[in-house]
């Protein structure tokens, strides 16, 4: 444009300095009625059609002329932003005393691009952080896979598959459509049908993500509800790197009408895949370890007691640490060849897993000695020698009760080896202490034990318990021992109760007594003569 032809352009009105025209920032001087009074060099580059004397609308940026009208009529001085060609421009008006305005225009394209990138980056960081929380929350493999598929379908794709390594052509997998619930299933497929899947599942050689030609995808890949076979616009297969071992593969699908996966999406999918893989590996490790633990502890857990040969047995156990399921107290009930039922309850010195391992040994030894259960002293002596010869330095206390039904009554032979003497609850509420006494097991080469025989009438109970009950500290005033008196008083109310009710009552009172305070292992075992005459057990107990 020939600027000389328009004197107004080179001779700016009063108030505009000489440097104005050469200022690095674009500026346009506009009268209140929208007539352009001056345009500097930078502004001419931006708006080639604009010239002094012409209306501002000639600039072609409708947003700018609209902003000027608002400025002139309502006095709005806030900056406005709009597009000029492929640029984004921020315009800021400055009011002059004569009512004119200078619009200072700044190219904000770059700022906007960076802002947009920052917003996207923040969104992704927030998503990854949320995804990590969601993925790491669970240590359950199928659930972790479902979470991963759900997150992918929600944020990265229209549908997503998470496929775990499998054996013999069977692959645990989860499919998720955007907006739907993830579906778990087992894929019976040849992974080679989907290019890249086989390598991703093997995790070796290390492979990058792969874009797949939608025409090459096998039919199973499109989850129900996704659409016809032609509906997949783009497909991306990404390996899930685990802790040193492959955790599986991620398959992302977008519909035809959506943007295809870009290199940027691929990088992001890989970041996400790293988190999924780590979470799935951790879950798999937990699954393996906890199933080993379950198998090993199964044998050490106290058994569930029921009625045996017309006699009620019930047991309750609470380990010292709530996180453990095991401890140093134990009990068992075994029917014996001589017609009796042997109930035993004991306490190994110590707590936790190590004590629990020794309880397992003692329980096994006692089970092997069952044929001799007619002679408690002999069983205890043999157990004593067995413990002395083992490498364990721990000792144990033990109470044995051999019960047999005699008509409506139950006759019980009781022997204690260093254990608290069992208590007997009579039908009238009296509580008697048995007199059996004996030495600890696993300390001295020779032990002395004495026994006692009691007869339980219907509704009467013989209670075997460990010192965790009486030595429980707590109570309303804090720090007080539960003690034998309180136990006896509690048992006095238990006359005529079924065995499991007695056990529940004692457990409940001690649990309330200790509250949240620390306590020792607590074990209780009740042997009860059934109260109801003519019960089903009575007619069948001889078999």
């Amino acid at each position, binding site marked *: 444009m020939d600027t000389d032809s328009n004197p107004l352009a080179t001779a700016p009105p009063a108030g505009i300095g000489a440097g104005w025209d050469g200022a690095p920032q674009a500026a346009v001087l506009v009268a209140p009625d929208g007539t352009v009074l001056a345009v500097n060099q930078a502004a001419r580059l931006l708006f080639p059609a604009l010239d002094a004397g012409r209306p501002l609308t000639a600039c072609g940026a409708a947003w700018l002329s609209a902003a000027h009208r608002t400025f002139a009529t309502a006095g709005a001085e806030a900056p406005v932003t709009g597009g000029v060609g492929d640029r984004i421009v921020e315009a800021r008006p400055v009011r002059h005393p004569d009512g004119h305005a200078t619009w200072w225009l700044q190219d904000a394209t770059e700022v906007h691009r960076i802002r947009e990138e920052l917003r996207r980056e923040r969104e992704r960081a927030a998503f990854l952080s949320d995804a990590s929380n969601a993925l790491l929350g*669970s240590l359950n493999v199928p659930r972790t896979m479902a979470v991963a598929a759900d997150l992918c379908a929600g944020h990265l794709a229209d549908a997503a598959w998470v496929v775990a390594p499998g054996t013999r052509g069977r692959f645990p997998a989860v499919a998720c459509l955007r907006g739907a619930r993830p579906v778990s299933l087992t894929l019976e497929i040849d992974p080679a049908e989907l290019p890249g899947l086989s390598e991703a599942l093997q995790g070796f050689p290390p492979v990058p993500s792969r874009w797949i030609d939608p025409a090459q995808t096998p039919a199973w890949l499109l989850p129900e509800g996704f659409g016809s076979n032609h509906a997949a616009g783009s497909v991306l297969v990404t390996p899930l790197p685990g802790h040193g071992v492959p955790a599986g593969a991620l398959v992302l699908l977008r519909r035809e009408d959506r943007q295809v996966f870009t290199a940027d999406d691929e990088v992001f999918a890989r970041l996400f895949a790293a988190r999924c893989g780590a979470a799935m590996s951790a879950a798999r490790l937990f699954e393996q370890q906890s199933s080993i633990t379950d198998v090993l502890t199964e044998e050490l857990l106290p058994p569930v007691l029921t009625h045996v040969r017309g006699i009620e047995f019930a047991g309750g156990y609470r380990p010292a640490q709530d996180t453990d399921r095991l401890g140093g107290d134990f009990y068992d009930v075994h029917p014996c060849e001589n017609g009796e039922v042997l109930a035993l309850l004991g306490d190994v010195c110590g707590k936790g897993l190590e004590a629990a391992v020794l309880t397992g040994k003692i329980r096994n030894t006692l089970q092997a000695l069952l044929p001799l259960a007619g002679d408690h002293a002999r069983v205890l002596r043999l157990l004593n020698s067995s413990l002395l010869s083992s490498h364990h330095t721990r000792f144990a206390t033990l109470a044995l009760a051999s019960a047999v039904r005699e008509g409506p009554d139950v006759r019980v032979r009781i022997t204690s080896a260093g254990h608290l003497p069992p208590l007997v609850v009579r039908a009238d509420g009296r509580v008697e202490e048995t007199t059996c006494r004996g030495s600890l097991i696993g300390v001295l080469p020779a032990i002395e034990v004495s026994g006692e025989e009691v007869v339980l009438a219907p509704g009467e109970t013989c209670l075997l318990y460990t010192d965790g009950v009486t030595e429980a500290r707590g*109570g309303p005033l804090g720090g007080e021992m539960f003690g034998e008196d309180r136990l006896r008083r509690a048992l006095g109310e238990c006359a005529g109760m079924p065995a499991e009710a007695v056990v529940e009552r004692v457990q409940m009172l001690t649990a309330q007594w200790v509250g949240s305070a620390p306590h020792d292992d607590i074990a209780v075992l009740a042997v009860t003569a059934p109260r109801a005459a003519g019960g089903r057990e009575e007619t069948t107990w001889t078999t």
Partner: protein
Amino acid sequence: MDDVTERAARHANRLWDAAVDADEHAATAAVLEALRDGLDGESVLLDVIGAVQRRVGVEWAANNITVAQEHAATAINERVIVTVARDLPRPTERRGRITVSCVDGEWHALPARLLAEVLMLRGFRVDYLGAQVPTPHLITHLHRTGPDAVALSGSLATRLPSAHATITACQATGVPVIAGGAAFGPDGRWARLLGADAWAPDARAAADRLIADPLPRPQRAHQPRDALPHLADQEYTMVNRSSPQLVRAVYAGLEDRVPGMRDYTDLQRQYTAEDLAHIVEFLATALYAGDASLFTTFLTWTADILAARGVPGATLLPALELLAGELRDFPRATAVLTEARDALAVENAPA
């Protein structure tokens, strides 16, 4: 009363007589008779056995049965459930997997047990963990089995803080929680407060809710503080932690005020101290929930229990006053105690 309800009530009466008498044989016979009479499994579980269990609570409160009878009846009901469950037809539907557990420290396992059986009848795969489940066990179980939801049962309001920890822990593993039981309030208000994903007033409603629409996966584990901003004042923590000292101080104060208390036997002393510990526990729970009604409801209930046993509630008001004196620096506790005293005064006013 329709026919089914009437029949269920008749069978419940028979079961009641057998249960308080600890007669397993008669109890089993009563329930099998109910099934023969055409009641379906769910109705026998909830309207016969469940009804008897509710009556156990009511009759105990009215001092019509002893503690021994209460425990015996519960034990008999447990045994009867085993018998019934064995005889009921297997469901044909196959639904999701639900873990049924009591709140840590909860002793009343029967409502959870009945829910577990009802859910199984409706076709759910159920893991029943029972009462006295430490939260770490529950969480390990969730990781191991990955259920669709946890059904959490609680009857004691004082276990609400514990329930809150459990709900938050379950949700952190991505498993939603449906809460139920008297502990969460008659309208489930405390289930909502503690962020449970759903609440049901009874076993039937819980099963209906779980069938109608599977609970959505918790979106984000919320922090306990989010729901209960008032906990920032530490009043719950302080009252809860100093319970033994508070009980001791109030007890000493009562001895000066209430004639005859100095002559109490050891047993009477223990009972009184336990009652006071209960009051402090409920006060702490009300502070946790930020809801004075939790404490007032407990106190009026206690007054009724004492009245049923012919124990004059003479110590209740002075105990509240002494407690208010001890806690005068705690504005929320003071407000709760004032409200409770007013409510008790209304209750005690001659009609």
